[in-house]
């Protein structure tokens, strides 16, 4: 059955695919991707529960072996750094689009391109109260990441924004555009 076959495509079959699924699961979560970016490693994310979800081992129990393999082999942040930055930029722009109800101008892209705003946004994004608030030890790292993101925003802000606005309209979220 076609649907069954398609569902199985998402279940990794070997070590390489397992790493790929785990990395993608981090990328597709705004929350997890920014945590890994700010902390500089996957330690906080890398639990059996996370890996079971990422590898679909509850659908394919034989994948428990891959879960056990991955738990001892976390992905290094530096290996996925660029993809994490791109994901963070998309999510920053999404927040802007939501707050401004889709009316984001080129002026806004410049106005809100400030490492202090970006750093504050990231710190708020990953924390639950004070839990996982990456401060004070991570302050310098966060500022460095915020500078990188600010530069990426100057370079790619406009084309990324166009994609996000199209998605926003497609989802019927635009009230007065």
């Amino acid at each position, binding site marked *: 059955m076609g649907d069954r076959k398609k569902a199985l495509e998402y279940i990794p079959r070997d070590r390489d695919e397992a790493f790929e699924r785990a990395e993608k*699961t981090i990328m597709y979560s705004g929350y997890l991707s920014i945590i890994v970016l700010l902390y500089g490693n996957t330690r906080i994310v890398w639990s059996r529960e996370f890996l079971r979800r990422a590898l679909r081992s*509850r659908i394919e129990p034989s994948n428990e072996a891959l879960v056990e393999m991955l738990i001892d082999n976390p992905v290094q942040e530096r290996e996925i750094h660029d993809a994490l930055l791109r994901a963070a930029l998309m999510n920053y722009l999404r927040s802007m689009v939501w707050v401004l109800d889709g009316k984001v101008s080129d002026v806004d892209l410049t106005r809100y391109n400030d490492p202090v705003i970006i750093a504050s946004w990231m710190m708020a994004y990953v924390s639950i109260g004070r839990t996982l608030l990456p401060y004070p030890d991570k302050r310098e790292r966060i500022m460095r990441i915020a500078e990188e993101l600010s530069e990426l925003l100057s370079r790619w802000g406009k084309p990324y924004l166009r994609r996000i606005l199209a998605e926003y309209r497609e989802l019927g979220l635009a009230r007065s555009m």
Partner: protein
Amino acid sequence: MSGYTLYVHRTCKSSHKLLGYLKERRLLDKITVIQVEELDKALAKMLYSVPALESQDEIIAIDPGA
């Protein structure tokens, strides 16, 4: 009742696509759909991403490709 719960959010394109797919195949009435915008006990669920599919109180699939 199949015992499946699907967690979604209105800003999420994958959630939107998945709901469309389920509607097309008349599967929507077989599952419970929950918007995570104001989810009870959300922190206990550890739902760091949507869409997410739950069965027997365990998340069995999560974005991407849920």
